[in-house]
């Protein structure tokens, strides 16, 4: 039943876009948390996952302050006002 996923035709491009977006997102968040450039480079090269970054930043060898900033950032970018509480139905 492929008709649910017409965008699959461009799957390679999507994958590439996602990879670039992910790297960019991780770099920006780490920069904002004032993580050292060397450390940022290391984490990006190791392809740390976005989920890992936002959920358990302290496990990535970041300071408590940096981890706290990342969690705050997660809240800031996730919160969408009233929409946050709407049930996700199609």
């Amino acid at each position: 039943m492929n008709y649910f996923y017409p965008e699959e035709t461009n799957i390679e491009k999507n994958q590439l876009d996602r990879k670039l977006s992910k790297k960019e997102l991780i770099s920006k968040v780490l920069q904002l948390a004032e993580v050292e450039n060397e450390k940022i480079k290391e984490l990006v090269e190791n392809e740390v996952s976005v989920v890992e970054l936002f959920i358990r930043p302290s496990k990535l060898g970041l300071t408590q302050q940096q981890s706290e900033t990342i969690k705050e950032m997660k809240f800031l970018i996730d919160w969408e006002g009233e929409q946050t509480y709407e049930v996700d139905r199609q």
Partner: protein
Amino acid sequence: MKSIDNRPFQYEQDQDRFVELIKKYTGIPKKTLTDYLKEHNIQDMYEHPDTLNVSEERKGKLQEIAEIRRLYQNLRDNNREYKLNNDTKVRDYFTNYYSEKRDREYVAVAFLNNQLNVIKTEILSEGTVDSAMISPREVAKKALIYDAKAAVMSHNHPGGSSEPSIADIEMTKKTQEALELFDIHLVDHIIVAGEGKHTSIKGLGYVSEPVSSYSQNLHEVSTSFDFQGQDDKTSSSYENYLKGVLKKIGHETTISNKSELLHAHNLLAGSYIDMVYDEKQGFDKIEEIDLERKSLFTRHLESRSASLFSNGVSEVIVSPSAKKEGMYQLTYFDKYGASMDSLRSSKEECVRELQSNHLVPLRKDFAEFVRELNQNESVAKTLNFLTDKNGVNHFHKLENEPLRLVNIETVRQKNHFSDYNIQLEDKSQNRYNYTISSPKKRHDLLEDWSKEMNGYEWLSEDIKSEAVRRKPDLTIQNPIPQLSAEAKPLAEFMKQEKTVTQRL
């Protein structure tokens, strides 16, 4: 401000935190933000920061956050990023999912494809602060809609404890059973109680591992069919799978050789044909499974049909049932050749069944198929066959009913065929006049028309019907003939014709 259902407390707390953090990272005063959010939404703030009337420096910092937010949302919206192929990923995914949903209990299910990538995660229920209801039926229904091959259930416990209740465990088992019927694997049921607190119901031993992937193994065996027995790649995992399913439906069996493996395979694939493996001839003997054995598997066969649909039905055959007179048999085949039969009392029911199973998108030629199904009726209507004096056509109800020839007279003779006015009578003694064109010789006609035939068979006797079948646009409007006083019962008619012939 619009009302937020009955959740103002959570909302206000979150908004305070949001405003506080924006102030921290951009320096925009709390009052400016609070006033702004009374008139605008978050989207406006990020997309049109000029409307906030703040300094360029503060606006620049806000745009930095907006950029991160945009990147994050792009990734989040494309759930296929997430591959839930191990326990850690499942746990992280849902911990993240519920991180901002702390106001009440939600039940969310991630539907996965066969690579265990998330197709869609959907909240199927929301409850009060400590309860949420979910029905296994709803999970199964959604899984079929998303064409999922696996699913992960989850719910949060805003109260803090991640311990599952007895109801949680019962619900997991019921959902697993419901999904299993459709060959959809329940990967786990995760309870999230907050960062670092979560429980896997599978981890507690309440969710069993799948025996093996049915479709994959079905394909393996189908491949071995192609090799006509020369290939000996019998899958032991498939054997275990078959044994497991047979046991589950209460049928202990032994699978000690390839022939028995194929036998079990055919039963569970929904096939009513038993392939017999012969050492010399390969898989070329077939015999029907007797009804008693078949009934053992009825329950499982029904569930198989759903799996056939999820594999995609590659062919459907509708034919009059050989086993039950007057019934129609729908036989579905999937791409692996597994089949499923279904008996219906009319062609219309067959069409309804196909439509209700959403087979339309799977069959490109569906419209043509429906036309084929109704073709005989269209032909009968075009030719006014079994149309009464009031112009009502009765072919549909008499297609399979016996009709006997009551009276007949010759209208005209041509080189290769003759036209006859005939009168047919049904079981209720209703009579229908018709002009039939036949190339049949007299002695054949006597033999064939003296016995009862059903509506379809009588229609096929008329050579005009074949012309209309070939060219549906052909217009042949038979008037409904009024039989003259010359019309005779068939036996008398034949004698009379014979006399005429002799005279000639």
